[in-house]
């Protein structure tokens, strides 16, 4: 039975057209996904599967080019499935890519927006930085990583930020210290209207505690464990303001000051 043209356009191959190694463990992949590229907004994620027996992995979309029909994913190899994805090369195809999922980031002219990203979390933060800048905000970005080679996308972040502070745990680049040191510098020196944070849950917890002290509304983008990503399994549930919420359909961003980070950290530990 011949496929109709429209259906043919919808069934894409998810071919990888570009690959860049950010560090030993962090890989950038540009993937052909025209429908997702067209529909996605900052904050959305996709579910990716690699291999016929592959696991469904949620990945936040780092960038998209609707004219070329591509999305950019930045993947950190932490387990077997992410290692498989990182081992793919241009010309290879992801078995499945579905999205864009989740709710898009609320983008408005808030005034001054503080964007702080840790490690690979800088990748999904980049489209938010760009959108916040385009909406007329003053954007101050704080990027953090264990060492110099784990600071990613610095140039792209600088291009859309009014100021950038870099923090490394070992002092090999920027200032030495945790992300909170940089965040507090900003909060002390100027009025901040809103904060967005993406990174390891433990980092977001401490950023959230700090911004709460300074009374700055903060959104944290959570990377929970998921199976389907469409509300079906509930594996991604998180307590926000005392209520159980599903990250996949009600998030991934929530009011950081309401998130039960200790429960989230407990659920993420194997």
């Amino acid at each position, binding site marked *: *039975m011949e496929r109709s043209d*429209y259906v043919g356009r919808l069934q894409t191959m998810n071919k990888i057209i570009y690959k860049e190694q950010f560090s030993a463990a962090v890989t950038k992949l540009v993937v052909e996904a025209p429908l997702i590229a067209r529909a996605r907004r900052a904050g959305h994620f996709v579910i990716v599967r690699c291999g016929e027996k592959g696991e*469904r992995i949620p990945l936040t979309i780092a960038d998209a080019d609707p004219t070329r029909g591509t999305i950019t994913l930045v993947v950190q190899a932490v387990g077997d499935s992410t290692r498989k994805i990182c081992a793919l090369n241009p010309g290879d195809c992801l078995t499945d890519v579905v*999205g864009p999922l989740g709710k898009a980031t609320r983008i408005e002219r808030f005034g001054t927006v503080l964007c702080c990203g840790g490690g690979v979390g800088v990748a999904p933060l980049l489209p938010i930085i760009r959108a916040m800048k385009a909406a007329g905000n003053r954007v101050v970005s704080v990027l953090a990583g264990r060492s110099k080679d784990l600071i990613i996308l610095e140039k792209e972040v600088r291009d859309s930020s009014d100021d950038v502070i870099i923090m490394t745990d070992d002092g090999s680049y920027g200032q030495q210290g945790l992300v909170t040191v940089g965040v507090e510098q900003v909060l002390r020196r100027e009025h901040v209207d809103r904060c967005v944070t993406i990174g390891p849950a433990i980092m977001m917890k401490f950023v959230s505690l700090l911004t709460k002290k300074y009374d700055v509304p903060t959104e944290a983008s959570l990377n929970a464990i998921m199976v389907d990503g469409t509300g*079906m399994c509930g594996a991604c549930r*998180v*307590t926000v303001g005392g209520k159980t919420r599903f990250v996949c359909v009600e998030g991934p961003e929530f009011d950081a000051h309401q998130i039960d980070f200790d429960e989230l950290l407990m659920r993420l530990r194997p």
Partner: protein
Amino acid sequence: MIELNDGRDAQWRAELRAAIKPKERGAVERVTMAMLDPQERIRCNDEVNRGLTDEQAHSEATRCLDCANPQCVTGCPVAIDIPGFIKRVEAGDIAAAAATIKRTSALPAVCGRVCPQEKQCESKCIHNRMGNKPVAIGYLERYVADWQRNHPETEVAPAIVPNGRKVAVVGSGPAGLTYAGQMAQQGFKVTVFEALHEVGGVLKYGIPEFRLPNAIVDHEIDGLRRLGVEFVTNCVVGKTITVDELKSEGYEQIFIGSGAGFPRFMNIPGENLKGVMSSNEYLTRINLMEAGRGGDTPVLTGHTVAVIGGGNTAMDSSRTALRQGAERVMLVYRRGRDEMPARREEIEHAIEEGVELMTLHNPVEYLGDESGRVKAMRVQRMELGEPDASGRRSPVPVEGAIDEVPVDLVIVAVGVSPNPLVPQSVPGLEMSRRGTIVVDENTMQSNIDGLVAGGDIVRGGATVILAMGDGRRAATAK
């Protein structure tokens, strides 16, 4: 539509009817289907029910009296011509029996396995009124579908006259597949959009293979492909593409059958501990993602497992836990065994396999160890009080009677809510307070022109066959 010459007045059928007296037919004993031994089957994922032999099927078919006014058909949500196909079985023409069923049901091998026939067609069988056991309609349907699958060369392809029009289906579960099959037979070009990477919806992710093998679901879906139905996987209508886009692409009707895949929890302390999960998560990991069966997806296993709930999903989860190697599986249900909504057969199979029923108990809290993994549940003992709105006696807590039971895995199977994803993306769509799409129950028409809906997105959590009935009603409404 092909002419099957299977009307009740057809000569072959009248002769067949006259060949054996109704009294003799009624005296034939109802067949018993062979089953795998409980101890053997919990060590594998093979189908428990083994099907009928040719002799058994023929014998069972002779029990049907071929009533002038067959009530069984009124008990079937997709109105299968039940005496019509059963008499073909008696006459030995199984291919014709299969063609008769396929006219109204796209999924006979599925229905023959998972339909609650005892509450549907078989409950209306004339034999019940005469104190006999009803004809095993479900077994016969399964027999016919399985025979057809093993004899593909005999398949009678319906003659379809394309009408040049097209319709879309959102969700590839039983409601959507039935609508697709019916519309394809009417000549429509049908495209089914599925959010997951596999077609089949709850038939794949929800129902375990020991009850409904995935290969059987795939075979039914291939049958729809042969009718010209196209499938698009990894496509979330409302996210990847919009309903408006489908309309502008020329789809004149859109059937929403996106299901009730939104698990409910009880909102009790400790429910977010590790080792407490929804039955949807547990079953999806194992059934769809093949966790523990060669897939990359992991799943937690437990030595002592508690499954919360008394429905078919709770039975499926507890039986799955045994097959995953659990030493003790308890089914915790707040009412009594008689009040369980699960099929009798499922309850019996679960007990045979070693599932312990902990009825009249309700969990009130889960306790965790220092790593956050569940280690015990606190259960409130209940007793039955006055009947509630559902007619079942409602459970009332026995004051002070709370027990602590060690468990290391808890599967919560207390129901599902409609999935909000698709409805939320359609501005102006009328929804009920429960989050279901409001439709006219005869036509399945929503308040938005060109948008029909059926299955659990309308019902909020029902059965495969009721979903199929919705799909058929939407497709046949004029």
